[in-house]
């Protein structure tokens, strides 16, 4: 019995060693197109945010778009980077984040953790898993006065609108090189 428990524990620890190796490095042209795509996507969103709607109390750029750029322009084929996931992930998570803040904001640690965990579960449930969605939910809680004031508008601007713009850039840029195509699927 003691021996058994020891083996179970050994087995458990051995899982932490890892079994596979890192996927191969991508080509230089791939790296270049990742740079061009993410530059264009973030530039457009940031320009509209800082250059056009600054002072209206609105914003178009949130931190989670940096993460979306990694997927959209750097891992084009990933299921996590597809339009369904991008839009669904940001919008659903934003709604969940805002709800959690409004219901639980006296306890920010509870609001933020429930927001992220629920966002992930809901994205799984709706097949819209998009890692930056977790950040979008978290930002709804920890984003400060400017974000809190938006209420549920946060789900449309910046979360939804920013994602739509980045999607447009991905459709244009990712389909230029012969070795890339986007998306893999829409719904």
């Amino acid at each position, binding site marked *: 019995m003691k021996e058994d428990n020891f083996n179970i524990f050994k087995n458990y620890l051995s899982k932490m060693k890892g079994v596979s190796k890192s996927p191969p490095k991508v080509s230089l042209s791939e790296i270049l197109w990742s740079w061009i795509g993410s530059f264009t996507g973030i530039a457009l969103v940031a320009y509209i945010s800082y250059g056009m709607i600054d002072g209206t109390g609105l914003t178009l750029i949130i931190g989670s778009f940096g993460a979306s750029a990694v997927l959209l322009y750097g891992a084009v*084929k990933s299921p996590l980077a597809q339009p369904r996931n991008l839009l669904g992930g940001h919008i659903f998570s934003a709604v969940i984040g805002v709800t959690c803040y409004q219901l639980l904001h006296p306890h920010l640690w509870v609001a933020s953790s429930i927001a992220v965990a629920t966002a992930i579960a809901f994205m799984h449930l709706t097949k819209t898993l998009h890692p930056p969605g977790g950040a979008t939910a978290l930002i709804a809680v920890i984003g400060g006065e400017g974000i809190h004031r938006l209420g549920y508008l946060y789900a449309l601007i910046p979360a939804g609108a920013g994602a739509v713009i980045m999607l447009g850039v991905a459709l244009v840029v990712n389909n230029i090189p012969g070795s890339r195509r986007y998306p893999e699927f829409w719904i």
Partner: protein
Amino acid sequence: MIYIIGDYQIFFYNEGEVVPVNNSEKRKKINYSPFTISDEDIYEAMKDVPGYLDITPDDLMEVYRHAYRHALDRLATSLKAVDIMTEDACFVNKSTPLDQVAGLMAGKGISGVPVLDVNDKIAGVISEKDFLSRMGEKGKKHFMGVIAECLRGEGCVALPIREKKAEDIMSAPAVTVYEHTPVIEIAKLFAEKNINRVPVVDAEGNLKGIVSRADIVRSSPIRIMA
């Protein structure tokens, strides 16, 4: 476990290796298992695909193995007896005299024939073996046994069965399959029962056709894939 029908042999497919069904050690083990694809092959294949693949080589290998197993399952079960059987199969009746049975088999160039009863239901099968076992050297179901007997010049070796009828020497009850029986099951049956043909019948026992080893070889998935 999966069976692969190769030319003239049926292979038992087990994790990592492919061995003949009858598991005879004399036969060479043939190792053309897809599982011998190496980790390096997978890694190189991932490099062949432009762009970042959001999956580890091990996961890809696992997906590949499952996909291959599904493909084998599909190949193994999609082909049914009805797809490969000879439809207007020859047959004889229980009361058909053996000289006519032998004449029919010789005329059609076949080595076995189903035997039907008075209601046209399947009653048994007669093959060369059924003849041979009653001729020549006792118990040896082999043509050379008959030759040996003949060469010793002790008269016609067919004499013991001269006046007999199909029902006297047929193998009964007949091993049969249905039209929807997967070919892979028939191949197993051939190997287990050491037979070369099997009548295809409906639920009432009416003869619908016959499947021979040659039919199976012709339908081999290996050949389809090749």
